[in-house]
């Protein structure tokens, strides 16, 4: 028990005084501090336009913060090689190459086993040879989820990944994801505007409106 709490104290991902703006535009994020500990699933909620997606892009290394830094296990994010932080996007149809057959997309980083595919209800015979424009958003999102669950993944950032899915698909995908996360001890940052979802899947909920000093200026 004590060992577990000690392990849980280890910081996985940390945003240190992160500020961001495009060019010399208005600040989108200001002085954001966020620590995510091992074994945590953090829900990041906030109204739209508060910079949830921007923060997720900064945390996963897609965007460089204008000020401050992002630390992964105490060091800057690795620039090359497989990134231990992987993202699942809001729009799966944008996240897969429209000119790739789906089996290529699925196997881009690793080859998921049949068990995972079955859990995600990915129909191998029917979907593997298809093009992305022939599948629905929910079907594509299953591929996007399977794609990032490779053995080298240690942390998942899900940016509104189930917002546009129907309730059944949402439940299926989240069940699989939570199952894998528990088994492998994956860290998770769930960005959503649905409090209900955050309460259901996360161990801690953070409100970006409180973290982001932009809202506190006036």
């Amino acid at each position, binding site marked *: 028990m004590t060992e577990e709490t000690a392990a849980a104290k280890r910081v996985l991902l940390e945003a240190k005084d992160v500020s961001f703006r495009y060019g010399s535009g208005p600040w989108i994020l200001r002085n954001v501090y966020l620590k995510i500990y091992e074994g945590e699933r953090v829900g990041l909620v906030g109204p739209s336009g508060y910079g949830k997606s921007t923060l997720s892009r900064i945390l*996963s*290394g*897609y965007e460089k913060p204008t000020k401050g830094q992002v630390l992964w296990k105490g060091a800057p994010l690795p620039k*090359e*090689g*497989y*990134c231990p*932080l*992987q*993202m699942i*996007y809001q*729009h799966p149809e*944008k*996240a*897969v*190459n*429209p*000119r*790739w057959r789906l089996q290529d*997309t699925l196997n*881009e*980083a690793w080859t998921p086993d049949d068990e995972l595919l079955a859990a995600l209800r990915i129909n191998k015979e029917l979907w593997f040879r298809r*093009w*992305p*424009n*022939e599948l629905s958003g929910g079907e594509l999102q299953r591929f996007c989820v399977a*794609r990032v669950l*490779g053995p080298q993944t240690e942390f998942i950032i899900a940016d509104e990944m189930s917002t546009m899915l129907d309730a059944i698909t949402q439940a299926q995908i989240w069940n699989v994801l939570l199952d894998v996360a528990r088994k492998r001890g994956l860290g998770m940052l769930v960005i959503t505007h649905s409090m209900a979802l955050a309460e259901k899947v996360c161990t801690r909920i953070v409100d970006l409106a409180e973290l982001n000093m932009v809202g506190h200026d006036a």
Partner: protein
Amino acid sequence: MKKTPVLTGHGLRNRRSQTIFIVTVALATLILITVAGLTMDPEKYATDFSVKNQAPSAEHLFGTDWMGRDMLMRTVKGLSTSIYIGLLASIVTSVLALFLGVLAGTIGRWATTAFNWMVDLFMGVPHLILLILISILLGRGARGVMIGVIVTHWCPLGRIVQAEIMSLKNSQYVQAAVRMGKSKWWVAMRHMLPHVIPQFIVGLVLMFPHAIMHEASITFLGFGLPPEQPAIGVILSESMKYLTTGIWWLALLPGLSLLAIVVLFEEIGSNLRLLIDPFSAQE
């Protein structure tokens, strides 16, 4: 009971096999003409003053010119020369454009800047002058024309390719691939190239008539192919002198043949694009 005929034919039951059929026929025609021209016995279009200036007839389908040469044979021979020059020049040009465009879009900012300078340099000089200079420098003939076309014509397509690559760089699947540890080169080849192929094919197809026209125009000006070589450009520029005397077939029939070849080539291009486009995979 009446059966509704749904199928247009056994082998042509959907758009895809129709497309393949069209491409095959067009390719076969082009190859046939090229081979016929390249292997043709020069006797077939030899000078024969006993039959000069004859209008099209069963014996001479395209008529004969002022030296009694059979125009059908000269046209086929000329078309094959033109196809050969046009094809080679447009393929090398588009591959060069693709390569430079991908390189400029992938390596980094300085490569983009250098690329833009090069494009501006080549587009700043009038094509025809550069073409003439290069053609003379390389001792005229087909080689000079081809290299001239290649050097002056890679810019527009190169720029399109480079712009496409730049926009693909910001797409989520490319960024995701980078986060999966894929190298720049791998991403460029696997993720980006399939998106540029349609532009590449269209560019290649449009380059073909362009190359032939340039070959014709600098030949007309006397800096290209030697006049004794039956090329469409030579035939057309010669025929201009006889047009006012009522000898219409010298210009019309070879001109129409050239048009037909260009149309065939465009047909191949647009159908190939259909074949590789996932959005038409099920048609």
